[in-house]
């Protein structure tokens, strides 16, 4: 029988198990990542917002720059390779030039892409100096043509020969930011009003809920139109922008207030809230320190899901001509150009802004759904 010597392990050899704490954010992120579609959507949304931020850098030309020579010029697309005489390929990004024909019957000029003419395209092309996002001085664009007066319409041109791509990029900034601004404002009112209603209950709660129900039972577009039509015509672009944001939030807060109120109601009777109350914490402290953190993720998900509605509403209002006005470029004002069938038949590419709307709305919905599932502590 072997003698077993019991040795006490030296204290310092014990592997230290470091307690790993996962914050609520880590937990959410882990659950969120399992949701493939939501993850992809997140990147799409991020990409769109990056475009919005770096609009001046990405847009080849100024959104207001027009050229009477190229009205309704069709999309050029962009070719990365150039074919030589002998059929060999070489890397030379270029766009094709236009050959114009006069249509005698319709009395107008139509353009066809001329594959013979190659206009070289340069990435990080030098340009006129400009301010990125209004602050950083720069003099280089993401993409541009090297010849000064060559036509460059990757996605085509509009009625005044303005570059649709540039306008689309600048429109992205306005449309997406108005969605964010509208939701932020709605969230502010929603949390305050819904929070009071949910926390104190009583007559204030029922009054708020009646108002919310009433607003939600009204058809929104007529209401928005009525409010937007009351804006003085001589307001500046910035004033209109903020006015529209406020108009959108006037209805937008209701949904968020309802969500916040519901959360407050269900949390009010939780033990940890009672415990805090018995400890003598003030209402303000209980709300901000104990209750809000426990449902913040849920509220963020609800807010994300509210952004698409805002974007859609702005697009619809501007499309009808009562939202943002001409010098401001948004997806809605861009689509306004595509309103009648004659224009559409000549220049179907003017519908591209609508495509952007659809993609962003889809991505945001999926992203919001994923976020909501991830934020739900009882899910899966």
């Amino acid at each position, binding site marked *: 029988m072997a003698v077993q010597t019991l040795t006490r392990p030296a204290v310092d050899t014990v592997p230290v198990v470091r307690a790993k704490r996962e914050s609520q954010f880590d937990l959410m992120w882990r659950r969120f990542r399992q949701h493939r579609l939501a993850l992809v959507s997140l990147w799409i949304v991020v990409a769109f917002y990056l475009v919005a931020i770096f609009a001046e850098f990405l847009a080849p030309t100024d959104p207001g720059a027009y050229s009477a020579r190229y009205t309704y010029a069709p999309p050029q697309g962009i070719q990365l390779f150039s074919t030589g005489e002998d059929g060999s390929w070489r890397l030379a990004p270029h766009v094709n030039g236009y050959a114009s024909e006069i249509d005698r019957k319709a009395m107008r000029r139509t353009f066809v892409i001329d594959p013979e003419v190659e206009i070289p395209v340069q990435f990080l092309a030098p340009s006129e100096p400009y301010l990125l996002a209004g602050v950083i001085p720069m003099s280089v664009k993401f993409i541009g043509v090297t010849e000064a007066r060559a036509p460059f319409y990757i996605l085509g041109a509009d009625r005044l020969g303005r570059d649709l791509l540039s306008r689309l990029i600048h429109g992205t900034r306005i449309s997406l930011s108005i969605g964010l601004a509208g939701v932020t404002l709605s969230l502010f009112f929603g949390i305050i009003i819904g929070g009071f209603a949910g926390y104190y209950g009583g007559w204030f709660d029922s009054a708020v809920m009646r108002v919310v129900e009433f607003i939600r039972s*009204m058809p929104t577009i007529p209401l928005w139109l*009525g*409010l937007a*039509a009351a804006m003085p015509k001589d307001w500046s672009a910035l004033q209109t922008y903020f006015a529209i944001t406020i108009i959108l939030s006037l209805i937008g807060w209701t949904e968020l207030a309802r969500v916040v109120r519901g959360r407050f109601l269900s949390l009010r009777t939780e033990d940890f809230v009672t415990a805090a109350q018995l400890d003598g914490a003030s209402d303000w402290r209980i709300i901000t320190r104990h209750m809000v953190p426990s449902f913040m993720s849920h509220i963020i998900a609800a807010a994300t899901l509210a952004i698409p509605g805002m974007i*859609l509403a702005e697009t619809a209002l501007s*499309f009808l001509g009562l939202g943002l006005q001409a010098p401001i470029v948004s997806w809605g004002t861009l689509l306004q150009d595509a309103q009648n069938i004659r224009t559409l038949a000549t220049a179907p590419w003017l519908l591209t802004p609508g495509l952007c709307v*659809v993609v962003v709305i889809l991505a945001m919905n999926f992203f919001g759904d994923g976020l909501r599932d991830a934020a739900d502590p009882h899910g899966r």
Partner: protein
Amino acid sequence: MLGFIGRRLIAMVLTMWAVSFVAFAIIQLPPGDYLTTYMATLAANGDRVDPATIEALRQQYGFGEPYIVQYWKWISGIVLRGDFGQSFEWKAPVTSLIWGRLGNSILLEGLAVIVMWLVAVPIGIYAAVRKYSLGDYLATIGGFIGLAIPNFFFALILMYLSFIWFGETIGGLFSPQYEAARWSPGRVWDFLSHAWAPVLVLSMAGTAELIRILRANLLDELKKPYVTTARAKGLSEFRTILKYPVRVALNPLISTIGWLLPALVSSSVIVSVVLNLPTAGPLLLRSLTSQDMFLAGAIIMLLGMLTVIGTLVSDLLLAWIDPRIRYGSK
């Protein structure tokens, strides 16, 4: 049931009162009052402004008096005499302008609701019964896209495609020869051949939503033991599903009309503008851009009322079908 109807009716009257108040607030919003605008238009047209007429109008609408008095004069005219005021752009009473157009709006929205149900119910049932089948995935994807496409954009695409493929423009509700005709089989046919496009556009988002709800409801029901019991008793699969779970799952759908309607009325305004339909929508837009506020206010109010009444109907329908709601506390 009577008590329930009574309660709902009182609630409806209160809501309508609130709607009228909002509509009047919108009438009052633009700077200056109706009368100054009216006089400005008259003067701009070179018409002589008759002081007596102005004074009469001032009396009738109570201009210069407190807000609440003006509101009272406006609303009492509507309730007691059916007088919605004057449209100064059209130089006609508002009533003569809106009823026909409102009728078209109601007709289109009603058709859209019917189409929504006819399409959504079978697809929803199929998607739930054959869960995760190809058809289910297609329905889900279609639903998401249907919800994401703004309806006016869909209308534009439809317009473009029909122009490219068939060489004809869609738009309007009647051909010129049927415009003012009385209803006849020919006119009905003409109407249908025009109305398919707006009805399709209007019903798309709602259909997507209904399919999603019905699928979720039915999936919950299909798991329940009574379905197993029905199967165990040897009922055919078709009868098992249609006779019990589908009926239960349909109930909540009826209440969805309540919140589908505001969206539907909303979207019909903008779709009508795109497709140039003779409904209340384009008239509203025109009156708002020209600040013809009594006309605009009347349309906003009537569209709101329409929604409120629709919601009431759906509530009553639901109470009639589902006794739990009738006898529940509220």
